């Protein structure tokens, strides 16, 4: 088990980071090429002003008509996204491992905040899962991959919580924690999770089309 963990937390971690980084660049490059081929005018009317205006507006909670129409989903979504990014990056145990490997460290969350953030992530995922099942307009758009993706996001957080509480089988759970975290990282560029790095482009595209073509706001 120790050997498997050392392999998972060593070479395999590098593989997942490289797949993630290269995958992101590849997706961006492919999209730029596709836009040049199929939607050439995009490059003419893309506007930094309208793009940033739209991105900024959609980053403000309750800043858009759609958010005001769905206040619960908006609150859950903002809390979820804040926690899903902050907890792994600023968890003390993660920063400590990075410090021991590279001698670099940064600010960390108090344990209580990281704990609360983990619960927010898990509750948010249960909410999104139920929402995909129950709301007809969302269910219509949901396939098996969408549900599987929610489970994939839940795994590193659930196993982390489990290990924090020293639940039964903590050795297997920690191995699962590392493996599922790596699977999640590597999956980001190739699944709907790519909205993590594509959202500024989608939002910028919409903002530009609404701003400089239709002369309307897109929120």
């Amino acid at each position, binding site marked *: 088990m120790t050997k498997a963990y050392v392999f998972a937390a060593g070479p395999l971690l590098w593989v997942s980071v490289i797949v993630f980084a290269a995958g992101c660049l590849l997706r961006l490059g492919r999209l730029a090429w596709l836009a040049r081929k199929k939607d050439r005018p995009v490059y003419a009317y893309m506007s930094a002003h309208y793009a940033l205006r739209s991105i900024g507006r959609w980053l403000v909670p309750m800043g858009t008509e759609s958010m005001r129409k769905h206040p619960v989903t908006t609150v859950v979504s903002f809390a979820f996204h804040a926690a899903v990014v902050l907890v792994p990056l600023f968890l003390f145990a993660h920063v*400590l491992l990075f410090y021991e490997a590279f001698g670099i*460290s940064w600010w960390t969350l108090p344990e209580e905040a990281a704990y609360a953030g983990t619960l927010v992530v898990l*509750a948010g995922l249960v909410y999104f899962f139920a929402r995909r099942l129950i*709301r007809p307009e969302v269910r219509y758009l949901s396939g098996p991959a969408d549900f599987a993706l929610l489970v994939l996001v839940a795994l590193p957080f659930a196993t982390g*919580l489990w290990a*924090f509480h020293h639940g039964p089988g*903590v050795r297997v759970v920690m191995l699962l924690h590392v493996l599922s975290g790596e699977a999640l990282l590597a999956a980001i560029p190739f699944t709907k999770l790519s909205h993590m790095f594509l959202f500024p482009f989608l939002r910028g595209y919409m903002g530009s089309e609404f701003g400089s073509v239709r002369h309307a706001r897109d929120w």
Partner: protein
Amino acid sequence: MKPIRAKTILGAALVAVLALVSLTPAWGRDQAPPPVVSDSAFDHHRRRAAPFAHDEHNDLAAIEDCALCHHVVENGRVKEDEDSVGMECSECHGSGLPLIAAYHGRCKECHQETGLGPILCATCHTVPR
């Protein structure tokens, strides 16, 4: 059928997660406090200190050289034939992350190199927070 509202879904999601979590903290509570590695520089414990029975550990690991852990370093080199028994690690290693890393360097790295001891967070810091 009336569509189920977002608030209802959120309520059910919160109940599900809280129910799961409320069951968990009871694990590992019924252990007597064992001897631990300690240093006065640790004023705020993120994890409970790792249990460590000095003599039993060294018998089992066949460690006879005190300076293997209680080393003396000068100009970046370990000094032969000297040890720092009786000193606190923090006297040289400071506090916070460098001190924690020094402990992990002695314990975890040796365990990893020899393959003979625990290396996961919860397998040394065995008492839950």
